[in-house]
């Protein structure tokens, strides 16, 4: 195919789902109504840990009007299938977190549902919950297994002891990050529709149709052909609709099958915050051996993540956390140990960045600490240690692709005038505010960790339709990130067609193959590449047909200037030729399966090898103002430079960077979950504080591009990268302004005050 035709890559056509969203026409799950549809609700645990004694039904309520399901009435095993089978659909004997589901209710309408839910009383004998990483590590409870350890991994390189022996000084620190709520604007929601064949169709707000399908076949004991999962317009996800929709779908489908009615469950916001996953809180201890000039010679890093009550995706989050724990630095002798522990809190799960933001926060703060210990500035200490092409990561991976860490740092410093602004705390003695500037450098592995992509072996199809359009059939969803537009641009470019001819329908598992989940910054880089291959396969079929049709050799058939040609003979437009194919030969579909890039190896057992197919690089400079008296923090400007291979659609790419950066800043200073006996106190939009327009800094984003040969048209992963650098850069800026070193986030004014009093500082 003529890849140059169209010239779409690197341009920014208006997003294909733009008008439906801007006009209010897009239908999200709560906008859908199905004849005969009931509503579902959930009876939840009021306590963090305890034994279920009884479930009492108020006799004054007529329960014949509703359907109630407890663990005893489930149609299949009491399991939401994820990595392990430890997560029950409904708590049976014990509850392990506040808001854990105990019973489900479906009713014909909302008032009846509300009445039924209040007519069910849960009697639980509570016991002492385990709520902190420290208590979990001490084996209290236990919450899970014998020792609360959900997963444990380690990686090492070099000789740690020799490394520390070589060091001029040892710098140590412990860094902590808290829960983060996704706060997608659209809460989790699902509709389940019972089918005549005893199967079920679910329609929902979700990232991973096949995860949901797998969970449903297991929980409902149904064969895969009797389960259909369809995604509809999804109002933000950020990982919050990666694992959790499997739980919700199991609930809705169980009720629908039982009630023999379609059942809709849409969480009210407080329920969503209490019951669904969050970003894993972390404690990362870093001990480094450093030369006098700041060169790292050894690092011993201990990562602990709070996984909540069940496994969910914690082992995978943990693996990404430890694989990013060394930061974008060359550390010749290193050992990284990671553990995910269980506590009596709602299971934590996927959230943009997936463990990496936690460990990158730790290492970036630690680099600032080293800088001040050895008496050099934060830029110098980073430059001395930054990875360059050909360096080795702690997991043993040699970075053969161009390493852009130095480039993004240089550009971010120049664009922001970092040097001119650093250390200028206060314009005058009377100023109400102190100003500060801070930086971070980071990287993010694109696609699944280790052998994940090989295990998934994602499949994609492209189909030429009777309407003369190319449909991209993949299980990856548009959730705001721009997947629809980017995948259509990639296919249009691959086929040399105008963008208007390509569509990406909402995935429906009865129509699309399993291309894997919409996670891990893989949709553009990995799925996009499979789509290119599928387009090639489709074009080859059409070419072969045209060759037969015209008695020409296949290699004489070419597509150029919108037409197919046999030598100089014009055979017709793509549409005309495609329709002729449909008439003569039946469906015109190109299929492709993920191809493992040659030369990359991963040893799962020893956690060694090529952990990711490629890395994207970023540097942030954040400028803040801190009120002298109230310690209120105001991020003024954020300068972000990222290297992402090639931006398919630069406007969408910049939008991802800006949005991710603000999420990272919010996590850094505003967003906090406080707990009382395991109950989240910040369970409303009024109390879980995310940034508004007035809190958001002005943003300057620059895209750097080193095209990545193995990605589609040079693209690498992007979605998660911007989550990695905002918090440590913000913390550094606050330190520059206040001289207070915060090793934990969120850095609220209250935390700053506490640190100021402890330090006796200014």
């Amino acid at each position, binding site marked *: 195919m003529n890849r140059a035709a169209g010239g779409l890559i690197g341009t920014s056509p208006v997003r294909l789902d733009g008008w439906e*969203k801007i006009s*209010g026409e897009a239908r999200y799950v709560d906008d859908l109504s199905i004849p005969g549809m009931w509503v579902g609700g959930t009876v939840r645990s009021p306590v963090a840990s305890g034994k279920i004694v009884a479930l009492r039904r108020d006799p004054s309520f007529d329960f014949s009007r509703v359907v109630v399901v407890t663990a005893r009435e489930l149609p299949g095993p009491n399991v939401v299938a994820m990595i392990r089978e430890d997560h029950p659909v409904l708590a049976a004997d014990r509850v392990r977190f506040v808001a854990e589901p105990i019973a489900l209710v479906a009713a014909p309408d909302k008032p009846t549902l509300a009445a039924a839910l209040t007519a069910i009383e849960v009697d639980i004998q509570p016991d002492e919950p385990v709520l902190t990483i420290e208590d979990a590590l001490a084996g209290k409870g236990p919450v899970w297994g014998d020792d609360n350890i959900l997963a444990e991994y380690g990686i090492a390189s070099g000789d740690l002891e020799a490394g520390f022996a070589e060091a001029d000084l040892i710098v140590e620190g412990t860094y902590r990050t808290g829960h983060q709520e996704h706060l997608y*604007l659209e*809460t989790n929601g699902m509709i389940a529709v019972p089918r005549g064949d005893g199967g079920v169709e679910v329609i929902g707000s979700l990232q991973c149709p096949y995860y949901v399908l797998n969970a449903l076949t297991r929980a409902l004991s149904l064969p895969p052909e009797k389960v259909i999962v369809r995604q509809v317009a999804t109002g933000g996800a950020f990982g919050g609709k990666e694992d959790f929709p499997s739980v919700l779908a199991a609930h809705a489908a169980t009720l629908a099958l039982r009630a023999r009615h379609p059942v809709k469950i849409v969480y009210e916001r407080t329920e969503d915050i209490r019951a669904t996953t969050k970003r894993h809180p972390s404690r990362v201890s870093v001990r480094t051996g450093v030369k006098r000039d700041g060169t790292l010679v050894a690092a011993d890093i201990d990562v602990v993540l709070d996984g909540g009550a069940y496994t969910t995706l914690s082992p995978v989050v943990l693996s990404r956390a430890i694989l990013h724990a060394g930061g974008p630095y060359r550390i010749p002798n290193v050992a990284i140990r990671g553990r995910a522990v269980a506590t009596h809190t709602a299971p934590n799960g996927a959230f943009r960045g997936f463990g990496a933001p936690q460990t990158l926060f730790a290492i970036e703060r630690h680099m600032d600490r080293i800088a001040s210990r050895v008496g050099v500035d934060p830029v110098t200490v980073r430059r001395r240690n930054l990875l360059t092409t050909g360096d080795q990561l702690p997991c043993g991976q040699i970075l053969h692709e161009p390493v852009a860490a130095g480039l993004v740092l240089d550009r971010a410093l120049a664009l922001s005038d970092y040097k001119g602004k650093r250390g200028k705390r206060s314009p005058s003695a009377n100023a109400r505010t102190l100003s500060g500037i801070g930086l971070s450098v980071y990287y993010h592995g694109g696609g699944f960790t280790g052998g994940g992509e090989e295990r998934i072996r994602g499949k994609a199809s492209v189909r030429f339709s009777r309407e003369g359009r190319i449909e991209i059939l993949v299980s990856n969803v548009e959730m*705001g990130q721009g997947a629809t537009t980017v995948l259509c641009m990639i296919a249009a470019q691959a086929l040399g067609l105008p963008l208007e001819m390509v569509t990406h329908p909402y995935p429906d598992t009865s129509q699309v193959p399993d291309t894997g989940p919409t996670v891990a910054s893989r949709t553009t880089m990995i799925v996009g590449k499979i789509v290119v291959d599928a387009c090639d396969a489709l074009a080859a079929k059409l070419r072969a047909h045209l060759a037969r049709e015209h008695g020409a050799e296949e290699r004489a058939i070419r597509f150029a200037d919108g037409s197919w040609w046999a030598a100089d003979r014009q055979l017709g437009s793509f549409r005309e030729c495609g329709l002729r194919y449909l008439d003569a030969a039946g469906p015109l579909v190109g299929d492709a399966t993920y191809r493992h890039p040659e030369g990359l190896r991963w040893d799962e057992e020893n956690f060694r090898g090529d952990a990711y197919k490629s890395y994207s690089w970023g540097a942030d400079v954040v400028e803040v103002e801190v009120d002298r008296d*109230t310690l209120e923090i105001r991020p003024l400007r954020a300068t972000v430079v990222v290297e992402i291979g090639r931006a398919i659609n630069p406007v969408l790419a910049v939008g991802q960077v800006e949005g991710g950066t603000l999420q990272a800043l919010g996590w850094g200073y505003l967003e906090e979950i406080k707990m009382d006996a395991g109950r989240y106190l910040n369970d409303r939009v009024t109390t879980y504080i995310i940034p*508004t*327009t007035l*809190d958001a800094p002005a943003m300057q984003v620059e895209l750097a591009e080193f095209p990545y040969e193995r990605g589609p048209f040079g693209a690498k992963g992007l979605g998660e990268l911007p989550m990695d650098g905002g918090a440590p850069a913000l913390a550094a800026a606050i330190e520059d302004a206040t001289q207070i070193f915060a090793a934990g986030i969120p850095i609220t004014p209250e935390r700053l005050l506490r640190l100021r009093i402890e330090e006796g500082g200014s």
Partner: protein
Amino acid sequence: MKVSFEVNGEGHVLDVPPLRRLLDILREDLGLTGTKEGCGEGECGACAVLMDDALVDACLVPAVQLAGRRIVTIEGLGSRERPDPVQQAFLEEGAAQCGFCIPGMVMASRALLNRCPQPSREEIRTGLAGNLCRCTGYERIIRAVQRAASLPAESGQPASVETVPASRTVTASVDGIPAYAPDDLREALEILQTQGERITIIAGATDLLTDVKLGNRRPAAVMDITRLACLRGIALTEQGLEIGATTEFAQVARDARVRRHAPALADAAATVGAAAIQNRATLGGNLMTASPAADAPPVLMALGATVTLTSAKGTREVPVDSFFVGYRRCACRPEELLSRVSIPLPPAGDRQCFYKVGTRLAQSISKVCVACRAQVDAGGVLSGVRVAAGSVAPTPVALPEVARYLEGRRVQGSDAPEVMAAAGNIAAREIAPIDDVRSSAAYRSAVTRSLVVRFLQEIARS
């Protein structure tokens, strides 16, 4: 109850419970699902629509207030063929990602541009501060509004059909609670005289519908007082400012007379929620709710304001200082209506301040707020000092001890730092802050101290 109102140029008559939310009426009764629910408590703005041209959150408008209103939703804004300039600009700038906040964001942008056709970046940020977006980081949205301002203002809004007449006093339908919407004060007071105990009064409804949603309140009967014209508006008399109880904060914040004579009150009004809340929440409601975190009461205390409580039997005046009698309890009796707030004219050279430390910079509830006023003479000697604070005790509180201490003291010269520090310490002792979901007692105490000192430093400097 039956209400008739207009949506996107079309008249509707519906029989709905009086507290049914406009949001549910739009989405469920009229099938207009473009308006989204993100929080149900006026915090996210996903349900923002225009009501009589003002931006409001549809989750905080009860049916009882809809009679005769003109609503415009996203569906009424523009079409694919003739998009509103805001929609066109959002498309071109790539301002939408997941799209869930976008209908509200577009309506907020439209409302802003209607009021302020060429907004600055700061005006855009302020105008959209009540609309949360989790995807974009706002940058592209701000640019889109800038671009929309530069596009020809061809409005895609439907031509208004003839306005539906407002129905007068309405009462309960079969399935609803009794509801009243009198347009005559005497009638309202008679209703209160006989049924005051069970009636919940509705003005801006911004607290009420949130409380109902959270299950904290289940009104037995309601009375909408926003049709009582005599309760709305601002007047300047020889005695001072008279502000009607149902005057919305948007009006208080913009009023030139308030800005001149009670600048601290205008500042406070501008920090209540954001645009959609300021268009609905009222000064009287902010007092009647008696929340310790309310922003207006500390200012009114500092300014020596009184409230007028009216009943069928007559009126009485109560200083705001003694209006709050306990946690979320005030001195207004069931048969009474808070009708107006009176603020005495300040003496010449009056200095006022309102400092709010919220959970964030907009759409936030105070962690601490402090209001102060004083007059300072040429020698730096203070008089007429009044200090009050919010979110630091079970009720908004006046801090008389610190005021007494400062009266007649100098805030210039060599003892000034000592005087200021002492004042700060007295203020910190006078309050009774607690740890809660928003902040800590230690922080509240430290900040109250600092803000009193800040006020003194600022008046000393000029």
